[in-house]
């Protein structure tokens, strides 16, 4: 490809623009900016709308979820008490405009309404089918779905399992991958290129091709129905995290290692006091990636813990809950929020490290 370079000064000597033309251009660019940003906001809203919908539904009563034509936000019909009875409030179109009135006497052709502000006044007669009217709603979120799910799903237990699995697995991941990545980044080992290629090749290996013997061995060891099949492998490194950390370690200048070595530091001391202090961003990225990965892992816990619901993490618990309470969408949606809330909060606080980690693994190939 031929590349022509443009001299900065050539651009600068373009004919001076009159101020009105400049204002016009600013307006045009502002317009483009506004249109594009608005379009992306709409796109994002569509993209995230399911999240908003389940959040809303999780605060609704079962009645509201089941009823057609209710507001999108959690609400209950507005009622008023009069002489010991409850009357529903409807939006009634009258000559002077739409008014919110209590339905007092239902009729097929005409109905009588009371003014909530002045209940003792004579009823207002309205002609038309009251069923065609819209009801008035009050914003009324309920926490009862969350309370029910909390007990039904044994949320504290699932939460404890998930956090314990995530924390232990993250420790294993950080320890093993840091050591292995350091080995690949800094030492001349005969055949290192071959070993590294082998490591990367495992990314392309379908899990099914190793599953049955591994599973059989875990059965023989008596590890099925325990956390060990999920935790032990994390202490033996994995291709993605080694790759990410190695790429990062390679960007740290070697001169500092060498200076430390001359001072008599051994390789562990160099890793600890020279490499790690400069690689925190990558280490944190690996840590939170693994933490979130554990939170999301479904198949591993499903096959190894299927007989022990008391040891399962939340993702498996939620799927199990769905197969039992699938006909109660408001409960499923509350459970869904309770499952995703922790990774989302972690992400919001640590999004900088997520972005860095993604970029290192994705681009610097």
């Amino acid at each position, binding site marked *: 490809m031929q590349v022509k370079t443009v001299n900065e000064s050539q651009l600068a000597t373009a004919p001076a623009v009159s101020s009105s033309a400049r204002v016009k251009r600013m307006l045009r660019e502002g317009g483009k900016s506004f249109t594009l940003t608005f379009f*992306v906001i709409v796109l994002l809203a569509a993209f995230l709308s*399911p999240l908003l919908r*389940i959040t809303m539904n999780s605060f609704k009563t079962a009645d509201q979820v089941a009823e057609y034509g209710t507001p999108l936000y959690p609400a209950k019909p507005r009622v008023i008490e009069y002489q010991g009875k409850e009357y529903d409030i409807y939006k009634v179109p009258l000559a002077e405009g739409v008014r919110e009135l209590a339905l007092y006497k239902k009729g097929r052709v005409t109905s009588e309404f009371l003014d909530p502000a002045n209940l003792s006044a004579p009823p207002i007669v309205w002609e038309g089918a009251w069923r065609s009217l819209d009801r008035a709603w009050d914003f009324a979120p309920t926490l009862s779905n969350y309370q029910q799910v909390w007990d039904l799903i044994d949320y504290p237990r699932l939460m404890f399992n998930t956090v314990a699995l995530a924390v232990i697995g993250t420790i294993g991941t950080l320890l093993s991958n840091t050591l292995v990545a350091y080995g690949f980044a800094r030492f001349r*080992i005969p055949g*290192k290129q071959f070993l590294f290629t082998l490591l990367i090749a495992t990314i*392309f290996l379908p899990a099914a091709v190793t599953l049955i013997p591994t599973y059989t061995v875990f059965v023989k060891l008596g590890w099925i129905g325990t956390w060990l099949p999920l935790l032990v492998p994390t202490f033996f490194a994995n291709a993605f995290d080694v790759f990410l950390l190695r790429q990062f370690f390679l960007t740290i200048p070697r001169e500092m290692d060498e200076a430390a070595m001359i001072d008599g530091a051994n390789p562990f001391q160099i890793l600890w006091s020279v490499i790690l202090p400069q690689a925190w961003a990558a280490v944190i990225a690996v840590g939170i990636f693994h933490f979130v990965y554990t939170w999301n892992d479904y*198949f591993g816990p499903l096959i190894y813990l299927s007989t022990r619901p008391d040891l399962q993490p939340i993702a498996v618990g939620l799927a199990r809950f769905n197969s039992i309470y699938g006909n109660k969408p408001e409960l499923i949606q509350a459970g869904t929020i309770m499952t995703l809330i922790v*990774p989302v909060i972690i992400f919001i606080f640590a999004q900088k490290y997520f972005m860095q980690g*993604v970029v290192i693994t994705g681009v610097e190939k």
Partner: protein
Amino acid sequence: MSSFKELFSIFHLKPNARREALYGLAFISLWLIGFLLFTLFPMIATLVFTFTNINLAQEQSLQFVGLQNYLAMFKDSQLHNALGVTFKYALIALPIGLALPLIVALLLNNKYLRAKGFFRIMFYLPFVIPFVAGIFAWGGLLNPEQGWINQGLEALGVQNPPGWLNDPTWVYPGLVILGLWGIGSAVIINLAGLQGIPTELYDAAKVDGAGWWATLWNVTLPMMSPVLFYALVLGVVGVFQYFLVPLVITDGTGRPGGATMFFNLYLYKTFFTFQNMSYGAAQAWVLFLLILALTVFLFWSSKYWVHYAGDTR
């Protein structure tokens, strides 16, 4: 393989170099042990299984049966269906999985866009949501009556909007739409790739009078080809192993009418439901060889379409 032989030259090194090599080996030994225990040994064991008749559902004496398990695949119409399902899904999912993150990244990289950092974070956000939770949240979109996709289609005047996950044809685009919530990671990778394109190239294209399309075709796409290549390879590896979403949605039944009985799902059913270990192992090796062949093909083809700036590979 020449570098494989290098492994053994450790015995001929000078003391200092040997010390370094031994330290290095000690550091990577955790992975080496893990590789032998959790990858190489199980792979070989799986291969051995394929030539035997291990079936936990039937009592029979262990025998070597030669290529019987592989030959059985030629007559297994359910397996053919599963392979067809996987290819159909791949043909829809891969192009969309490559193009859509690039399109979103192009939008997010546009100089006229405000609040770029905010959008970047928000598009990535659903990626961290557990996929079981994601299915329950984003699956609602595809509800034939209440999902807003069909409500939108009806508002546009579409008479019979698709039944999505209940329809044997529309289930594939449905599953692709359902998978979109996780495109955030790919968007960020594409965005980083776009930001890495030297601005001089765009200036030069402008001087040459290239329009938006010509710039996209002659500058952006060639410069993005390494990123797209990486996404394509990982996409192929992922799409041929796809089964978790249908497993959760249909409980592994393949509803509607076997349309979601993906190859990998059939494989896991052979293992865990029918407990025919040897036949499942043979399927696993076929899957492995299929993915290997496609990956090798992609790497071979990359020299014709992947443009590595500044280095001659």
